[in-house]
């Protein structure tokens, strides 16, 4: 099944501005070849459980189709999902 991590750990990502260009995952180096979608989520701030993230749906040179997000509060990147 498409792996989906509800609480993913941080991964190292190289960026160009705020856009991801490369990351490391599963002992592989991935270069982002295409950004299929990009959106921002900013919610729950009124509940004290703020979520503020930039999501990127990308393809990589390792032929992954995946979703990364940049946690703008902690300044960490996470791999949320690999679509397959």
């Amino acid at each position, binding site marked *: 099944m498409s792996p*989906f991590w*509800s*609480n993913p750990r941080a991964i190292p990502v190289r960026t160009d501005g705020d856009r991801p260009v490369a990351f490391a995952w599963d002992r592989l180096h991935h270069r982002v070849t295409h950004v299929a979608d990009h959106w921002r*989520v900013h*919610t729950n701030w009124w509940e004290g459980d703020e*979520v503020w993230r930039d999501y990127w749906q990308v393809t990589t040179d390792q032929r992954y189709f995946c979703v990364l997000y940049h946690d703008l509060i902690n300044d960490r990147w996470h791999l*949320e*999902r690999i679509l397959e």
Partner: protein
Amino acid sequence: MPRQTKRRTACLLIEGFAATVEQVRHPDIQGPLLGQEHGRVLGACSLARGQGVREGAALAHAQGRCAEVTVLPADRAHYEQVWAQLLMALSQHTPVIESAAPGLAYLNATGLIPLYASERAWCQALQHATRSSVGLEAQVGLARTKFVAHVAAASTGPGADACIVQDDRAFLAPRPISELPLNAELQRRCRLLGFHTIEKFASLPRHAVAEQFGPEALEAHAWARGLDRRPLSSRLYAKLSRRHEFDYPERRAEALHAILFKMGSDLLDELSRRGLAVNWVRLEVEYESADTRREAAWLGNGAGSAKLDRILCGMIDQLTTHHRAEPWNAGICDVTLMLTGLETFMGKQLDLFAHRADRLRLDATLRRLARKYSETMVLKPCIADPHTPILADRYRFCELGDEP
């Protein structure tokens, strides 16, 4: 070497079941009648079918074929209740009944005939049970295999003498090819090739059938040769009861409630473990005056403990009110609670609780796994918040829990 008992299978058929049930319920309606749901014909009486109305057809089309037909909205709960009552009545005559669809049941007759005067007497007993339990007339066929029994039943009329087949293949031989389970295209091809009767089709070698008609025709070919290997898949059925004897005649409704709720809960658990849904409850009490009184209620399919509790409350009120009216104000000495659990039917026509019995059995298995490993490992996914932008929060996992 012991003599092998000949396999015998009966088919009990009530065509246009929904419409037939409505006819009994509305004897004042003369002329053709059909039940409709969502603009489709759910069941059509024999008069309507005779004018070309077919089940599943669009209502407008049906009314075009039969202008004077009376259309009634479908009452699935009632049809379900009637069918379940009928199956319970038939279970007095055979231990194995397969409910293929409302209005169509297969019954195991193997080895039963010595208990009756003859095969015909047994078939008559089935028809009598149908008439007396639900007021409907059934068509009955008896043969070696399910397919032939069905064809035999369909060849008779409601309430007519049963069609008893001794030689399946000989019975099928002259019958038209349209009675085989072949789709329209294969039927057309058969006719084009000159196979108008089942005998002609059965005489083909198997490999020729596969080559000419494809592998989807092989099953029909086997049935045409009397080789229907489908076993009877019996309907699970259980009657469980508990009895409680009071030390002193009990007059307090609260005490009766408490005892009956506990008994009902235990019985419900037991039925659930067997993968059955309770749908019939009977309560019998014996007063200190030695009078007895019974209350019974139909719960519908899949009733849970909450509904059972409400029914029992109502029954207790009835029974305690009754005994208070007696001049000697009799207390209750003895209560017997009986729950009947049935598999829900999984008919193609009425798909109310599709495969619910399968679900109950799987859930019972999963609860055993949860007890063996951990409740937190056996889960069902649920939608938590479908609108949240955070995908992880859209869903959650729930433990299977104790719900039936």
